Structures are given as C-alpha cells and as structure tokens.
C-alpha cells in the first residue's frame, strides 16, 4: 500500500463543556474520497478544523505523506496542499468573482492572471462561472462553485468539504459530484463531511463514522445500507413514521397574490405568492433557502406587517396588518428557524422564554406568577424530553437540538390551530428530528393545520400531504405528495414550473 496522504492518530480536543474529539484516528489515502459521517455535534467540524490548522488538538499527532506535522494555522495547511470549502461562504458580496478569488490567494498574481486561471480551472472541471460577475448576483450554487474554484486554484492534494450539498438543488448536487469524482480520479484526496447517507454511499469509497466525539465505525459505504450506517451514526435506526391520509377541514390560512418589495438589497421580493393551508393537513414548502422563504414567513408571522391586509387571511379574517400577538390570539403559532435570538432570548431562562409567546402564567394585571411559569416550563421539558438542567437553565446553555425541541414544544403545547414551522430539524440530531416530525404529525391528526418550510426534501416527503416549491420569490402550484418526486421538485426549485403547468 502506498503512503497515506493524511493520518490522524489519537486526536483529542476538549472544550470546557464537552470533549469534541476523543482518541480519533483516521487515514486518508491518495485519490480517496473519504466520508466523515456523524450527527450534528458528533465532532466532525472540530476534526476538520484541526486538520486545517484552525484549532489545536490537546493530544494526538498528524502525519502528512508519512511525515509528522504540526499545522499551526490555515496558512500552513494551504502550504501543505490542504484546502477547505466551508459550509458558510466567505465571499464579499460587493466584489466580483475574480476579485474575491484574488483576495483569497494572497496577491502573488495579478488580477488579470487570476481571471485567466479561473477560466482555465472552470473549463477543466466544467464549472460554469463568469469571473467578472459580482458575487451578490450569484445563486447559492454558483457561490459554492466560486469557493470550490478558489480551493482548486491552490492545487490541493486534500480537499475538505463541509456539508456542501445542504444549499444545492438535486441537479446541482449531481454536477458537484461529477467534479469531485474527476478530482479524485486525478489523485486529489477528498474529505467529505455529511450526515446524508445516500450521498455518502454514492460518492465515497471510505467512511469514518463519528458519534459523541468518538469513532464508532470505519467502513466502505458502498457495502453498507442506510440502516447499517444509521446504526453506526446514532446507535439505533430512526423509528418509522406512521402516516395516514389526511382529511383536510376548514381553511386555516389563505394567502392571495402576496407581493412585497424586499427590505434590503440582498433580500428577495415576494412576487405574487398564493397558498392555502387547511385544518388537518401538513403542507410543505420546498426550495433552496434564500428564495423568499424568510420574507414569506416574516409576513405570515406578523413580524413584517407591510402586506395588504386582505392578502393574508387567517381563519377567514384579513390578517395582513395584524401583529404577531394578535395572530397568536387567533391560533397561529410560529417556530422560526433561528432559535437563539429570535425563537428564544439566549441569556434568559427557559421559563422566562415561555413568556415570548405564552401568557398563561401572567395575571390580568401583568403580574408574573413565577411558580406557575416554572411548572409550565418543567412540563414542556418533560413532555418533549428536552435535555436541560431545569426551567432555570439559560436558553443558550442548551444544544441546538434540545432548544429546538423546547421551542417546538412551547408552540405545540399552546394548542395552536395553525402551526408554521421553519426548518424544523435544522442542526437537530436524528433522534430528536424523528421526535419533532412525529409531534408535527400528531398535531395534524388532532386537526391542526401545519405549514412546514424546509430545505430537506426527504423530511418534506416524510411528513407533508401537499407540497409547494419556492424559487426566486415565487411559489409553485401545489402538488400532492403522491405525485412528488425528487427530479420534478428539483426542476421546480429552479423556478421551472410554468412550462409544465402550461401543457398540463
């Protein structure tokens, strides 16, 4: 066997509250596409930051081409030939593609030279990018291509990709995979971080599974099934959801031709959005985020009150100008995608955070019954199995998944007539995600109308009765789940539903 490109031996990294990596070992061969699979919080990102020199391990050693190295910073990592594409892009919106790449390269070459290099790389890998365009005019998929090209221009011998497909349409994922396979064939090693099992099985030739900071499996993903990978990742298979057909009842929410100019220059304008949600059904909105979902949700929740009053009807009442508290009074509860800072106040206790949307423990005069408030919080913690030290725990002390369970619990516990949830399982571990989905279905079965906005197609297929697709501030016609499949939804995600409905 050849000398491994990268070897990690017994890496340990402790943070004050948690051991992020405990005795982790990993070997990457030249030309290998190596998956690192694990739930959120399993320690994948910390491990990658150690390789990239952004975090120093407490113990353990790193070997590169068989030689021991101590990578002290990303600059040294790049000098070795390690490149990383982060989940969150680091591009300047107001600069062009070429200028962004040029800044990242350290100005050894002229801008014109860099522009030629970008075009050459783009042609070599079939990455379609125009170097003179400004970044703010690019779609998310295109921005990712820029990041990848920037990484490729350093001629990496190891490319690290952190959850690269979470922002892509299914078609864009295919293109990305073609590029990665070409790279691997040329001898570049790839570390591919993900929690999406089918992608790993399609793309990778080796897989290291992590759980709770430890390595729990090392396998060839092509030989494994989703179930066996999932067992290694979470220690159990997620329970299957019991799904029965819906019996839609009365109209809960009707949006008619909602048009809103965007608030800032990087926002998305809503362009004639119409949708309906009835009692007793789960309606999903698919789409890559940044296509107007934020704006739509803000005007549905009442945080943005610019909509024409009659364009949003709640239970038959024109609600466009109502504030969030008024809408909540009518029975609309909302779970926003940002948990800390919007769904909950980070520094306040779980009990205090109840008062954002719940008023049961507040007397008529506005006096707070702190005992009742704590009991109420304790009930939610128990019912939704939130892992927290108690009602007094500050919201920021909870992990993302647990806080999400608490916030979803807070809104479900209010017995809403219409529940709107944005990204219900973002950053939530598989077990908690299954629990949240089951709760949403139970709510639907109890006759509540549920609207779910999510990027995860599988999740929407799992729980929705009908689906809309959002693209560029517009909303597609709705499609029953039975007729939905990945390729059709994927096409709609690019805004191409008019053609189809024209000759349908």
């Amino acid at each position, binding site marked *: 066997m050849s000398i491994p490109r990268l070897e990690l031996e017994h890496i340990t990294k402790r943070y*004050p*509250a948690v051991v992020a990596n405990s005795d982790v070992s990993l070997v990457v061969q030249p030309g290998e596409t190596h998956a690192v699979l694990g739930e959120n919080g399993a320690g994948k990102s910390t491990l990658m930051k150690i390789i990239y020199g952004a975090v120093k391990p407490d113990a353990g050693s790193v070997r*590169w*081409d068989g*030689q*021991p*190295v*101590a*990578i*002290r910073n990303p600059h*040294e990592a*790049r*000098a*070795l*030939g390690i490149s990383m594409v982060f989940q969150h892009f680091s591009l300047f919106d107001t600069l062009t593609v070429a200028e962004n790449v040029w800044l990242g390269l350290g100005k050894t070459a002229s801008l014109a030279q860099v522009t030629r290099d970008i075009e050459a790389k783009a042609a070599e890998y079939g990455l379609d990018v125009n170097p003179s365009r400004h970044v703010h005019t690019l779609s998310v998929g295109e921005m990712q291509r820029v990041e990848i090209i920037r990484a490729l221009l*350093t*001629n990496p*011998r190891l490319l690290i990709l952190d959850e690269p497909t979470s922002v892509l349409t299914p078609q864009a994922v295919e293109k990305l995979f073609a590029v990665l396979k070409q790279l691997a064939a040329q001898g570049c090693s790839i570390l591919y971080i993900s929690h999406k099992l089918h992608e790993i099985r399609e793309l990778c030739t080796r897989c290291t599974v992590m759980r709770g900071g430890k390595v729990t499996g090392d396998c060839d993903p092509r030989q494994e099934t989703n179930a066996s990978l999932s067992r290694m990742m979470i220690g159990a298979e997620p329970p299957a959801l019991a799904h029965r057909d819906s019996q839609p009842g009365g109209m809960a929410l009707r949006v008619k031709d909602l048009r809103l100019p965007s608030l800032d220059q990087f926002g998305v304008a809503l362009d004639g959005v119409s949708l309906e949600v009835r009692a007793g059904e789960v309606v999903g909105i698919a789409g890559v985020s940044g296509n107007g979902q934020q704006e739509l949700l803000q005007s549905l*929740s*009442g*945080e943005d009150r610019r909509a024409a009053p009659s364009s949003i009807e709640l239970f038959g009442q024109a609600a466009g100008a109502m*504030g*969030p*508290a*008024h809408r*909540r009074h009518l029975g609309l509860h*909302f779970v*926003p995608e*940002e948990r800390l*800072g*919007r*769904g*909950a*106040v*980070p*520094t*306040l206790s779980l009990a*205090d955070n109840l*008062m*954002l*949307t719940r*008023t049961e423990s*507040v007397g008529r005069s*506005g*006096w*707070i019954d*702190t005992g009742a408030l704590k009991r109420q919080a304790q009930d939610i913690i128990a019912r939704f199995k939130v892992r927290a030290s108690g009602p007094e725990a*500050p919201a920021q*002390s909870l992990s993302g998944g647990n806080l999400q369970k608490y916030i979803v619990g807070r809104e479900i516990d209010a017995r809403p007539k219409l529940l709107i949830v944005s990204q219900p399982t973002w950053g939530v571990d598989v077990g908690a995600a299954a629990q949240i989905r089951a709760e949403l279905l139970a709510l639907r079965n109890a006759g509540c109308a549920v609207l779910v906005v999510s990027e995860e197609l599988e999740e929407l297929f799992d729980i929705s009765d009908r689906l809309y697709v959002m693209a560029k501030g517009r909303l597609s016609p709705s499609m029953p789940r039975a007729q939905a499949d990945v390729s059709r939804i994927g096409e709609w995600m690019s805004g191409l539903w008019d053609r189809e409905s024209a000759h349908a």
Partner: protein
Amino acid sequence: MLEQRPAPSRFWSLASPVLALALTVLIGMVLFAALGKDPVRGLQVFFWEPIKSAYALSELMVKATPLLIIALGLAVCFRSNVWNIGAEGQYVIGAVLAGGVALLADKDSSRWIVLAILLAGIAGGMAWAGLTAFLRDRFNANEILVSLMLVYVAEQLLNYMVFGPWKDPAGYNFPQTKTFEAVTQIPRLMTGSRVSIGLLLALLGVAGLWVFLFRTRAGFAQQVGGLAPAAARYAGFSSRKALWTALLASGAAAGLAGALEVAGPIGQLTPYVPAGYGFAAIIVAFVGRLHPVGMVFSAVLMSMFYIGGELAQSRLGLPKSLTGVFQGLLLFTLLACDTLVAYRVRFVRAPATVAPVVKEAH
C-alpha cells in the same frame, strides 16, 4: 490564556465589582504616591472620612440620592438597549422647571407646593427625554448623540434663565435666582442632617424597579428588546413602546432628581446646578449591574468619590478632578474585570512542539 466558560460565572458577576474596587484602590494609592502624598492618608480621605461620623454618613446619602434616582431610570434604558447619555440634560431641565415653580411661592404658600415642584421636575425631565424619543422614533436619529447634545442645550437654557429673566434683582448682578422660600424646601427626614424624603423616594424606586423588571410582563417585554431584538419582534413586543417607556422613565427619574436638588440642598437656581450627576449615574448604573439593589451600593460608592474628591482638595491640596479620575478608574477596571464573568484564565505552558515539516505544495 483566556478560555470561554460554558456558562457565565455567577461568582464573578458579583466578585468582579469588588475586584474592580480593589484595583481602583490600588491604582489610587500609586497615584497618591506619584503625586507625592502619603497613600494611606489619601485612602483615609477617600474611604474613611466620608463614613466616620453620622454627619458624614448623612452627607454621603445626600449625594447618593440623586445618583441612585437617575441610575434607576437609566437602568430601564440600558436594559432595553436605549442609550440615553443625556440624563444630565434631563436633570437640568427638571431643575429649571422645579425652580420655576419654586419661584412662584411666597410667604403664604401651602406646604403642598413641594408636590407641585417635584411634579414639575418630573415633567421637565420627561419632556426633555421625550424630545430624544421623538427624534429617534420619527427620524431614526441616534439617541446617543441627540440626548448628549441636548445636555448642552439644557445648560444654555438654564444659563439664559439665571442670567436673564429669573436673575435675582437683589443679587448684586450675580447669575442666580433669589433663594427659594423656606416653604419650598423638600421635607427633611430628621433635624441636623440634609437627608430629605428624596432618599425614601429613591428606595421606593428601587423596590418599584425590581418589581417592574422581574415580576411584570411589561418589564419582561421591555428587556427582551434589549437582549434580543429579533425575539422581541417575533413575540410582538413593540420596539417603539419600549423606546418611549425607557426614555420617559429615565427622563422622569432625572427630572425628579433635579427637582430634589434645587428645592433641597441648593435652594436656588445657579449656573452650577449641573454637577455631573447625570453622567456619574451612568457609571453607577453599570457598576451596579443595572440591578436595582446593586445600584444602591454603587451609588453610595460614587457619592464617596464625590466627597472624597472635595476632601482631597481641602485636606491634601489635590485638584478636584481627582473625583473624575477615581470614577473613571472604577468603570475602567470594572469593564476589565467583567471579562472574568464570561472567560476564565488558564495558565498553560507553551507546548513543546516539533517544528512543522512544511513541504512546498507542488
């Protein structure tokens, strides 16, 4: 090295002001030594003389009262992320209006005029702070700048009144009003001391603020806007209401303090009414952790610095600006010590690393 704590330390959030005070004392001693004074004597003047007798203590309370009242109002502002830096101006306008009412009194006025004086002070402070709220609300003007600049406008207004229309005709052309009638004097708590009912009002304010902040939904809503504006929008708490509440409350408090001062210890309007209480109260508010009870302690401490500064002037021949130096030192060391609330210090040896074998990329 500094390492982030998993959760803010409760111990250090209480110990940090104490450590800050200790550091202030230490730096103060160095300062005295550098000025060629006996550091022990200096400390004695600053920290012992103001509390060594009943009279000294009562004087301490006299100065602590306006500081505490203003700081209580400011705490509402700062907790809701409204940066009212102009309490001094609201204090001055409160004093001017209260003085105007006091000037209306004559020998036959009823004792109840005191109530009118206090209400006039409150109204004046609210109106002045309301200007800032209006400009912020209507035109999105920065409240820090507006409130600060209105301080100077307020001072000029006071100057105009005492140099012009309200100047005492029998005052040998000094820029001051006539001394207010005795009937306007804020009732004192006991004879032989200048402590007035203002102290009771301040303590009532402490209790009231505690209840508002920690036991009412309105107080909760008020603070969420400061802690997490997006969460306040999500909950549907009005940010405009929070802005107006914060500024009107702190304006009222500053105006009340102004009324208590002119109708109390000062007894007339002069260009020297603005004594910097409005600015010092900002430090009181922060050193007291914006907590009603904490601010009682910090108000007493700041009052001590005021008196200590005056004593240092008379006893040690040091400039009065020493007060400001000590106040600044305290705020500065507190901000530094607060790092310990969120971080802990960990002593680490530099790890003995093997020099990296860096091969050029090819």
